[in-house]
């Protein structure tokens, strides 16, 4: 869908996903790294656990559909080359500390003078301006500042974040949405603009209704381990249940939505002689989540809990699918890769990695459009892999000029 457009991607791990999404949608993305490769190539996990700048699976995963060049934008020659590239580009995505590009005379104003239609998307922990804009951050800092972390974890231990960093991904995806909105306006008005993305704010969205509990009711929701808070104002619901070989996710919902699934579960339990009288007699349609008490939830939970313990997560999920019960496994990465649903939708893609002599299975498209095939057209670039193609082929630099640039560590 975006094949006429070019993206220059100057980001580190804070912004990889933005340009990847544009690339997945068809844009021509050029990843620009410092000579020798971006430090983010040191982020694991690594292919076969071997730390190496050409083996980072983090790099692999979020830089597909990008070509790669090296360029030192701090040198005068490097700046000139970047400006040449900016003239032909439609988007620039970057994640430097606020003010860094300005100091290099490559800030939005300068880029806009070179190409008035350019869209500059800047992804930073807290945004370009404000009292925290220059704060030092890492994933756990922005997750904490978003309010998400306080809501997660066991009550008797510190709040936790998800073990795999999430906030940069929220920001990268959010940035793609903002960039595309700016793009639509540009195509109609002829004007580019600056998209200022805050990682803190992009992650704050994931707290969903929690801030509103304070806003409306002056209630601070607290972490509750396997229980869900924030759905019923009176009680907490168990959402994670132990089963024979792991855990499953299931919640007792009331009303027209919960009733069929609760009834189906009770019927299944009854067929194995495990439904309590109370469960069998329950009128789920009139079970009101807003007024249900903790005792009611806990009372129902006992027989359900016993039933789950006798079954594996696979049995429970298959049984739930057959019966239309809102239950699913607490899946591991292995369960996800084995899931027949994703396979049936051709989600997985084999991507050739000649440099390690094998093909690697990747998660595929995030969307299935009817008029375009979103797929991985190329693996992530190796350091400077497309220098000759871009500098030689496109900018018309001679081999001699390239050799000089290499020698001066410009590329």
């Amino acid at each position: 869908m975006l094949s006429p457009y070019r993206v220059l991607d100057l980001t580190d791990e804070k912004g990889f996903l933005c340009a990847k999404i544009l690339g997945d949608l068809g844009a021509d993305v050029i990843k620009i790294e410092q000579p020798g490769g971006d430090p983010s190539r040191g982020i694991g996990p690594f292919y076969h656990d071997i730390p190496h700048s050409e083996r980072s699976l983090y790099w692999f995963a979020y830089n597909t559909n990008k070509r790669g060049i090296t360029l030192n934008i701090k040198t005068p020659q490097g700046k000139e080359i970047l400006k040449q590239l900016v003239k032909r580009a439609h988007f620039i995505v970057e994640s430097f500390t606020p003010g860094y590009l300005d100091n290099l005379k490559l800030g939005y104003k300068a880029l806009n003078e070179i190409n008035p239609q350019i869209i500059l998307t800047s992804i930073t922990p807290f945004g370009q301006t404000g009292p925290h804009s220059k704060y030092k951050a890492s994933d756990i800092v922005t997750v904490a500042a978003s309010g998400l972390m306080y809501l997660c974890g066991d009550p008797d231990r510190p709040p936790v974040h998800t073990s795999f960093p999430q906030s940069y991904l929220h920001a990268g995806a959010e940035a793609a949405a903002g960039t595309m909105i700016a793009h639509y306006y540009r195509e109609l008005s002829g004007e580019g603009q600056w998209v200022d993305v805050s990682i803190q704010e992009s992650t704050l969205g994931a707290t969903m209704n929690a801030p509103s509990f304070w806003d409306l009711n002056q209630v601070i929701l607290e972490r509750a381990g396997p229980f869900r808070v924030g759905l019923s104002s009176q009680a907490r619901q168990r959402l994670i249940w132990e089963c024979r070989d792991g855990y499953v996710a299931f919640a007792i919902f009331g009303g027209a939505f919960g009733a069929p699934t609760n009834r189906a579960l009770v019927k299944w339990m009854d067929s194995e002689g495990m439904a309590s009288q109370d469960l069998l007699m329950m009128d789920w349609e009139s079970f009101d989540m807003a007024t249900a008490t903790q005792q009611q939830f806990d009372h129902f939970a006992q027989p359900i809990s016993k039933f789950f313990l006798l079954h594996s997560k696979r049995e429970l999920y298959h049984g739930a699918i057959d019966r239309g019960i809102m239950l699913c496994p607490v899946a591991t990465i292995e369960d996800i890769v084995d899931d027949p649903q994703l396979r049936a939708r051709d989600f997985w893609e084999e991507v050739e990695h000649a440099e390690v002599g094998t093909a690697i299975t990747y998660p595929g498209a995030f969307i299935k459009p009817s008029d375009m095939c979103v797929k991985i057209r190329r693996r992530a670039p190796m350091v400077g892999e497309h220098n000759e193609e871009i500098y030689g082929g496109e900018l018309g630099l001679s081999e001699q000029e390239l050799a000089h640039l290499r020698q001066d560590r410009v590329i």
Partner: protein
Amino acid sequence: MKQALDGIKVADFSWIGAGPWTIKYLADHGAQVIHVESATRPDLLRSTPPYKDSIPGLNRSAYFAIYNDNKYGMSLNLNHHQVMTVVKRIVAWADIVAESFGPGRMKKWGLGYEQLKEIRPDIIMFSSTQQGQTGPHRDQPGFGTQLTSLAGFTHLTGWPDRPPALPYGAYTDSIAPKFGAAAIMAALDYRRRTGKGQYLDLSQYETGCQFLAPLILDYTTSQKIANRIGNRSPYGAPHGAYPCRGGDKWCVIAIFTDKEWESLCQAMGNPPWTKEARFGSSVGRKNNQDELDKLIGGWTINFTAEEIVAKLQAAKVAAGIVETSEEVYLDPQLRHRHYFEELEHPEIGRHSYPRPGFRLSKTPSQIHLPAPCLGEHTEYVCTKILGMPDEEFVDLLNKGVFE
């Protein structure tokens, strides 16, 4: 003030979380949006807390409100035998039709993509579901609350010696809308250039997998199954949440390099234990992180989280407050950027709406219209936006089409 998407029209049949949230990105940037529901089947978030004064009511939920600002609210009974006359007007008006029902439901109402195309050939239809329009599990009912577990996030949240803790809320509902909005905008651009509309099939599950992609590659290449590791980082220590003065108050600190470690030691006043050989290298700190966490917690507990963060940021150490839902409203950075905007809602009163996580320099998001009460704009939408004659509106109203 100019808005980026002035002139774009969206018929938003979607409901609950991910669908309406996707369309909010467009609504907050100037698209004209009609949120279509039915009094016979109100948006489920209308009966999900928090409510004004904690009293349930279809127009009292802020959960519904925060995803439906800047939208007109219309009630329409899609099961009514005369509804197609209204539906045709809406679809002919719209650039985009969004929905989030189970696969096949729209088609049964006469609103499948092929049917919409007959009314408007260049329509863009966006369907947001749990697991996609195809495949053996497409009809599996559920919400993001369960899908978060299916997509792997629950297993990866919490402590290695304990059962998993939940990522808060319907976590995958917060992922899908970003991808959805980007794809819709790309489809609009494609239509502008080619004249062609299209159908977009979004599976919330598949968007969730994008947020764990490197771990998936670690499994497909090395059969390694990632596990939750609390607040630890494989790349450095100390790394985690530390107790602060004042009850359940916490700060986070993240140290990766020797330089950062030295800055932290200095900010703590170089207590003797920091000189111990076992903490002298990043490998040593990693190997002794239990002990290290206790010692650092012994320092942080003497200060408020604000004090710790001020000290550490001054020393260029990555640190932050574990903010509560109250503290995000007081956060000076978020206030500076006007992340929350207050509007007067007819039944909720004055309350806050979150903006998208980005600001466009020339056409920033604006939140100007509170979320609609159920069916609040039905008459306005029909007679003013869709151009329906008053008599026809009254006739359909009397027949119950707008229930």
